[in-house]
C-alpha cells in the first residue's frame, strides 16, 4: 500500500523519465534485438503511469510535482491537471501502440545498424513531447520542445527516400525558427514578470506595467507554437516531413507531435494570456477562426490532388488540425470539448490510417495512390482499417470523427455562429472527396502487379492497426469516456473546476 502511494507521488516524473531512460538504455546497449523490447517496456511503464495519473487527477484535481523539491519560483514544477493528463494519456497510449507496431516495419525500412538509434530517437521524441505536456514551466517547455524536435529531425532523416533528408532539413530550419520565436516570447514574459513558472506568471500578470511587452510576447509565442503545430499557412513543412519519414515515425508524429503543440497553444491562450485578448482592433479568436477555416478548406483541397497516400493523409492532418484550433477559438465548453475530443480521435484515426499505409508500404513497397489499386482484395484487413479511419476523417456517424465534429458544431451554435457550423460540415464534404478517391482506388480498381503480389500485413502490424481502427468505431458509439475527459479539460481551461 505504502509502496503504491509512493509510486503515486512520483507518477509525473515517471511518465517522462521512463522513455528518457529507456532511450539511454537502448543507445547504450545498441543491440538490434534488444532495442525493441526495451522501447516497448519503457513506453509501457510510461503509459501505465499516465493511465494511473488519470485517476489521481480525477480525485485530486491538480497534481503538482516539484523536481528536486525546489519551490516553483526557483525550480521546475510538473503540473498535471485535467487538461494535460488527457494529452499524456493520448501520447503514451499511441506511442505504445506505435512501438508495438513498429518492429517489422522498422526492420524493413531502416538499415540494421541504425535500428537501435531509431528506437532511441522514438523514445526521446516521446519523452520530449510528454515533457512539453507535463511541465508547468515555460522555459522547461522550450527545452522539451527542442528535445522532441531534434529527435524528430533525426527520425525523419532516417527515411529511405532521399527526399527525407530535404524534408528533415526543411523541418529543422522551420522548427528552429519556431523554437526561437517561442523562446524570445518566453524571454519577454520573464522580463515582464520575473518568473518562468506559468502559474506564477498568471499571478503576476495584473501587475505588469507595459501591456505592449505582453502582446509582443504573445505574438512571438503563438506564432512560434503555430509553426510547430502546422497551423495554416505555417504548415508547409508537414506534408514532406510526414510523407518521407519512416512509417513508424510518421505514425508517432502524426498522432502526437502536433497535438502536444496544440495543447501548449491552448495552455498559453487560456491559461496565461486569456483567450479574449485583442491585439489592437484584431481579436485573437477571430484570426484563429480565419486561419482554421483556411486550413480546413485549402489543405483538404490540396489533399484531393495528392498522388501519394502519405502526403494525402498529411494534408488531411493539416485540415484536421484546423478543426482543433477552431474548437480552441470558439472558447466555449462545447467547442473546447470538441477540440480536445478531436485531439484524441484524430490521433486514433490518423494513427490507424498511417499504420495501414505503413503495412501497404511493407508489402507493396510503395505508397503511391496508383499502386494501392485493388489492395482491398489482397490485404482486406488492412484496407478495412484504412476505410474506417477514412470514414472517421469524414466524420461519418458511428465513428469517433462524428462525435468530435458534433461537439464543434454545437460549440459554433452556442457561440451564435451558425455559418461556422455550416463551414465545418461543408469542409467535411471535401474530406468525402479525398477519402472517396482513396477508397475508390483501394476497393474498386483492378489490382496492379504489386497489389496482386501483396499478402495481408503481418499480425504484429495488423493488430495495432485494427486496435486503433476499432477504437475509432468504439468511441464513435460509446463516447462517454473521452467526452468526459475532454469535457473536464474544457472546464479547467475555461477556469472552472471539473
Amino acid at each position, binding site marked *: 500500500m505504502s509502496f503504491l502511494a509512493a509510486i503515486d507521488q512520483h507518477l509525473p516524473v515517471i511518465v517522462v523519465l521512463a522513455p528518457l531512460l529507456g532511450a539511454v538504455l537502448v543507445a547504450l546497449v545498441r543491440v538490434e534485438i534488444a532495442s525493441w523490447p526495451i522501447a516497448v517496456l519503457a513506453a509501457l511503464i510510461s503509459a501505465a503511469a499516465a493511465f494511473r495519473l488519470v485517476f489521481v487527477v480525477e480525485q485530486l484535481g491538480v497534481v503538482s510535482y516539484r523536481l528536486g523539491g525546489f519551490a516553483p519560483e526557483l525550480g521546475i514544477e510538473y503540473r498535471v491537471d485535467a487538461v494535460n493528463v488527457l494529452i499524456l494519456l493520448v501520447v503514451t497510449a499511441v506511442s505504445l501502440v506505435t512501438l508495438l507496431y513498429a518492429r517489422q516495419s522498422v526492420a524493413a525500412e531502416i538499415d540494421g545498424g541504425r535500428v537501435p538509434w531509431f528506437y532511441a530517437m522514438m523514445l526521446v521524441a516521446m519523452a520530449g513531447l510528454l515533457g512539453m505536456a507535463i511541465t508547468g514551466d515555460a522555459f522547461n517547455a522550450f527545452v522539451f520542445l527542442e528535445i522532441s524536435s531534434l529527435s524528430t529531425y533525426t527520425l525523419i532523416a532516417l527515411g529511405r527516400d532521399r527526399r527525407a533528408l530535404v524534408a528533415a532539413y526543411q523541418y529543422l*530550419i522551420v522548427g528552429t*525558427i519556431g523554437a526561437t520565436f517561442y523562446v524570445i516570447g518566453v524571454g519577454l514574459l520573464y522580463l515582464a514578470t520575473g518568473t518562468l513558472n506559468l502559474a506564477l506568471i498568471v499571478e503576476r500578470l495584473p501587475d505588469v506595467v507595459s501591456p505592449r511587452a505582453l502582446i509582443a510576447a504573445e505574438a512571438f509565442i503563438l*506564432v512560434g507554437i503555430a509553426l510547430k503545430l502546422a497551423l495554416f499557412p505555417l*504548415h508547409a513543412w508537414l506534408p514532406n516531413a510526414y510523407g518521407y519519414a519512416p512509417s513508424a515515425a510518421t505514425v508517432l508524429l502524426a498522432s502526437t507531435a502536433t497535438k502536444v503543440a496544440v495543447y501548449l497553444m491552448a495552455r498559453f491562450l487560456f491559461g496565461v494570456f486569456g483567450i479574449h485578448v485583442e491585439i489592437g482592433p484584431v481579436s485573437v479568436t477571430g484570426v484563429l477562426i480565419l486561419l482554421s477555416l483556411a486550413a480546413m478548406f485549402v489543405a483538404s483541397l490540396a489533399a484531393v490532388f495528392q498522388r501519394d497516400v502519405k502526403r494525402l493523409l498529411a*494534408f488531411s492532418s493539416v485540415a484536421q488540425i484546423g478543426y482543433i484550433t477552431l474548437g480552441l477559438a470558439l472558447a466555449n465548453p462545447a467547442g473546447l470539448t470538441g477540440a480536445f475530443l478531436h485531439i484524441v480521435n484524430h490521433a486514433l484515426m490518423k494513427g490507424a490510417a498511417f499504420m495501414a499505409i505503413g503495412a501497404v508500404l511493407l508489402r507493396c513497397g510503395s505508397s503511391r495512390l496508383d499502386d494501392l489499386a485493388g489492395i482491398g482484395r489482397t490485404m482486406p484487413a488492412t484496407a478495412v482499417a484504412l476505410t474506417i479511419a477514412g470514414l472517421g476523417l469524414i466524420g461519418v456517424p458511428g465513428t469517433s470523427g462524428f462525435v468530435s465534429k458534433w461537439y464543434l458544431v454545437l460549440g459554433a451554435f452556442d457561440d451564435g455562429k*451558425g455559418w461556422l457550423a455550416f463551414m465545418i460540415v461543408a469542409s467535411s464534404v471535401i474530406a468525402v472527396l479525398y477519402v472517396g478517391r482513396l477508397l*475508390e482506388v483501394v476497393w474498386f480498381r483492378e489490382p496492379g502487379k504489386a497489389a496482386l503480389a501483396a499478402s495481408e500485413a503481418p499480425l504484429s502490424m495488423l493488430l495495432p492497426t485494427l486496435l486503433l481502427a476499432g477504437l475509432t468505431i468504439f468511441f464513435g458509439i460509446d463516447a462517454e469516456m473521452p467526452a468526459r475527459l475532454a469535457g473536464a479539460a474544457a472546464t479547467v481551461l475555461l477556469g472552472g473546476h471539473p
Partner: protein
Amino acid sequence: MAETLLLAPWLPLIVGSLLVAVLRGRVQDIVFVATPALALILVWSLPQTAGPDFNWLGLTLTPVVSDSTARLFGTAFALAAIGGAIFALPQRSSAERAAALLYAGAAQGVIFAGDLVTLFLFWEVMAIGSALVIFSNGASRAGLRYALMHAFGGVLFFAGIAASIGSGGTAIRPFAADSIGSLLMLAGILVNAGAPPVSAWVADAYPRASWSGAVFLSAFTTKAAIAVLIRLFPGEAALIPVGLIMAVYGMIYALLENDIRRMLSYSIVGQVGFMVVAIGIGTPLALAAAGAHAFVHILYKGLLMMAAGTVLRATGTARLTALGGLARSMPFATCAMIVGGLSLSAMPLTAGFVSKSAIMQALADDHDAVAWFALTAISAGSMLYAGLRLPWFAMLRPSTPRPATLQATPAMKLAMGGAGLILLAIGAAPGLLMRFVPGIESVAVLTSDHILFQLQLLVGASICFVLFLRLLVPHAGTTVDTDWLWRCLPQLLVKAGSALSRQVLAALSLKSRVDTRKIQAISEAWVQRTMHAGNWRTGDIALVATALLGICLLIAAM
C-alpha cells in the same frame, strides 16, 4: 423499457444483414427472407407508447417509437423487403443481399426513430446501404455519384438538425421553414425525395442496380423522405409547387424514356410529387392520403420493378426499342406489368385508385383548384406512360421477340403474384387499406360518379395514346436532365470564364503591352503552388512565419 428495443423492427434486418454476409447457401436464403418477415411482425407488435430513452453525448435518444404513421410505412417497407427478398432469391449475390437488408433496416430505423439524431443516423446508414446495393452490381461510378449526392443531402440535413437542436431539443416535431436550420433540414430531406433541382439522381442511380437490386431501391429512400416530411413539415405551403414540378417532371421524362427502369425511376419522382403536394396541404386527410399513397406506391412500383427485372434477366435488356412481342413468352411478367401500370394510373378496382382518390379529395376539400386540376391532368398522363406506353412497347406490340433465355422462377412469380394480389384486393375492398390509415375512411372511392369520372379520364387518355402513338415511339437516346447543372454547367462556366479572362488579358496587353504569357505563367505558378502546397521552399515558410509575426507586432505597436 429497454426491452422495447428488442422489438425494434430495424433490429432483425440489420442483424440479418450481418448474418447474410457471413452465411451461404440455403441458410442464407432463409435468413434473407425471414428477417423482413420478422420485421413485419415486430412492426405490429411494437406497442404505441413512449419509447425507451438513452443518453448519448448529452442528448436523449429514442431509438424506437411507434405511431400509426410509423406502422403504415413500416408495414409497406417490410412488405417491400419481403417481396424484394423473395424476388431476389435467384440472385445469388451475398453483397447485394447484405446491402439490401442493411438498407431495409435503416429505412425502418428512419420510420421508427424517436428523435432527430437517431433519425439522422439511420438516414445516413440508409444512404450507405443503398449505395452498396448499387456498388454490388459493379456500377462503381454511378454508385459514387449516388453516394456523393446523398452525402450532400446528409450534410444539409445534419446542419439543419444541429441548428434546430439549439432551439427546442432533439424531439421530432413539426417545423416551419422560416429559419436557416429548418430550411437546411427541408432541403436535405427534399434531396432524398428527389425534388428539383437534384431530381436526376433517381434516374441516374436506380437503373444501375441489378435486376433484383432495383426493387429494393425503388421502395425505400424516397418514401422514407415522405414519412419524414409528414412528421417534420406538415402543411408547409412551399411543398405544393415543389410537388407539382416533380409530378410534371416525372411524367414528361417518363414519356420520353427508352429504358424501362429509368422510366420507372422518373415515375417515382412523379408519384412522390403527388405525396409532396398532399403534405404541403397539411390537413389530417391530406397527410393520411400521402401516407396511403406512399404505401400503395411502394407496392405497385415494386411490382413494376419486378416485372422490369424479370424482363431484364430474361432478355438481357430493359430498353423498349429492343423489346416487344414478349406477351406470349412471358405472360406472367406481362400481367404483372399491366396490373402495376394500371394501379399507377389509378384505374378503378386497383389500389392506386383508392390512394389517389384520397389525395384528390384532400385537395378538393382544401379548395386548391390549381393543384387539383394539375394533378388530375398528370393522372391522365400517368396512364399514358405506365398504363399504355410501357406494357405496349415492352410486351404487347407485335414484334419479333427477343428470346427469353431465363424464365421467371417460382419465387419471382410468388413475389409478383403477392404484390399484384394485394393491389387488386385493396382496389376491390378499399376498407382493407383504410382500416389502418386513420383519417381516410371518409373518402368516397367506389361511388358511381367517382368511378365514371376516372374511367372517362383514362379512356380519354387511351384515345390520345392511340391517336398519337407515333409521337410516343421510344428512341435510343438521353434526355438532358437536371444533372446537367452539376455535370455540364461548371465546365461551361469554366470555359466561358477562361475565354473571358483571355479576352480581358488580351485587351490589357494591348494597352499596357504586358506579355500575356508572363501573366499566364504567374497565374499557373500560383495555381501550382496552392495545389502542391507541400513543396514550398524553406525560405518561403520562414518568410510567411516572419510576416505573420511582423503583422502581429505591427498591430500591437499601433
